[in-house]
């Protein structure tokens, strides 16, 4: 199973070699490994926290946690790092007062304007992003892995340690919940009229 559909530059054998070297505290291997999974983890975290700064801080913390406990790593590397990232997000929400949505909307819109997107699309995307954050943790995890990271259902099942059927069920419930959210309903209606 190829678990790296989002990142094609490292095959399974190369990853295994890097991991073996990293377990011997090889600083080059640790650095290369960190660069390799940084973007993946960043994207995974980005849609589950309020600000870019939070996403960057948490990704950095995940990297440190990975490096600290790399010698204890067993089984699938990606499942392991996503589990760490998921736990870090949970801890983040436990220990910090969540900033108000209004504040985060402002920040995110500014960031996206910088990226050169249209204003109406930006508002839609921002609504969607807020709706995503109202889902349960496991629903957020499945949606981000599926539609942001680009994994298929079997791969997600392997990463989150659930059956394929369970992942399909979570996916269905997550999409239904998103549709049922009032602002999302409006968003879809508007899209139909257009």
């Amino acid at each position, binding site marked *: 199973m190829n678990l790296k559909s989002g990142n094609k530059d490292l095959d399974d054998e190369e990853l295994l070699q890097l991991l073996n070297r990293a*377990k*011997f*505290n090889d*600083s080059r291997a*640790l*650095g290369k490994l*960190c*660069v390799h999974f*940084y*973007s993946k983890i*960043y*994207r995974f975290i*980005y*849609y589950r926290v309020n600000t*870019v700064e939070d*996403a*960057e801080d948490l*990704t*950095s913390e995940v*990297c*440190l946690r990975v*490096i*600290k406990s790399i*010698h*204890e790593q067993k089984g699938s590397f990606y499942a392991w790092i996503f589990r760490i990232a998921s736990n870090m997000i949970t801890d983040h929400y436990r220990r910090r007062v969540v900033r108000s949505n209004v504040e985060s909307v402002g920040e995110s819109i500014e960031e*996206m304007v910088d*990226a050169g*997107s249209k204003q109406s*699309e930006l508002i*839609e*995307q921002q609504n*969607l*992003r807020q709706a*995503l954050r109202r889902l349960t943790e496991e629903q957020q995890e499945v*949606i981000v892995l*599926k*539609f*942001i990271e680009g994994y*298929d*259902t079997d791969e997600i099942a392997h990463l989150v340690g659930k059956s394929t*059927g369970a992942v*399909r*069920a979570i*996916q*269905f419930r997550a*999409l*239904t919940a*998103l*549709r049922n959210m009032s602002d*999302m309903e409006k*968003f*879809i209606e508007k*899209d139909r009229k257009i």
Partner: protein
Amino acid sequence: MERDIELLLDNCINEMRNRKSVDESIAEHPQYAGQLQPLLRLVQKIETLPQPEPTPEAISGTLINLGHHIAQYSMTFEKPTAVVKMRKKSSVFNIIRRPKIAWAFNAAFLFLVVLFSAATISANSVPGDFLYPLKLATEKIKFMLTFNSEKKAELRLTFSDKRLQEMIAVFQQSGKLDTTLLKEMLDEAKLALEETKIPTDTASVFVTKLRHVNAYQKDVLEKIRPQVVSSNRKIVDEAINMCDSRSRWMRRMMNEENEISPDSSEPGSMDSPQRTPRSKQKSDRRQWGPECDWMR
């Protein structure tokens, strides 16, 4: 029903990834179109969300932090090495756990136990016994594995004593004198002296010990002499004479040593007329006691 819709939704999402439109995907399942369509349109919207990329500054900042951490980790915390060592150990145990290797280990262990038991039992064997060759082999191996000359001399003395005990045991059992054992007894005692380096304190102690053994051997031979058949009595007499002459030689040598030792540290003592040159002592030692015809 719910399972079906979950599976259908997943299949439709996969078809959309293969460049099918929402309408094309749900066309095959018209009965679920009402449920699937809004969900698939939502999926389309989610997939248009931007793929955020971290800034190079964020990555480099993390790498710098990691560099500090790795440096501290390497200097203060040796856990990875310990873990590797533990894994290596466990891998050795894993090898032993393999059936063939475990069988070989068990067989080797059993062989060693049998060999050790046989060697222990053979210690009391005498010529003609089944285990006597094993006793001689054990003695040879023991001697070959001994590298210290003093310990070698001690072993020779032990072997000489063992030959005497064997000779007595054979004589008590059969009433016959085993001349081969007698010859070996005398040979081992001679070789024991040749192994020692004279003069040293321990060598002097050893020569005294050898003298006692020699005297004991002479006593034993004198005691069994009347019971030996007349044809062998001459051999016993010669052996007794040899023990006697050896005893005299050793007594003389010890006296000379005692005379040399107090002056050896004084300047000019080399010119002492009483001193026997060491090279001379060595040559004498090699010829201690006359060899008999039956020993050749």
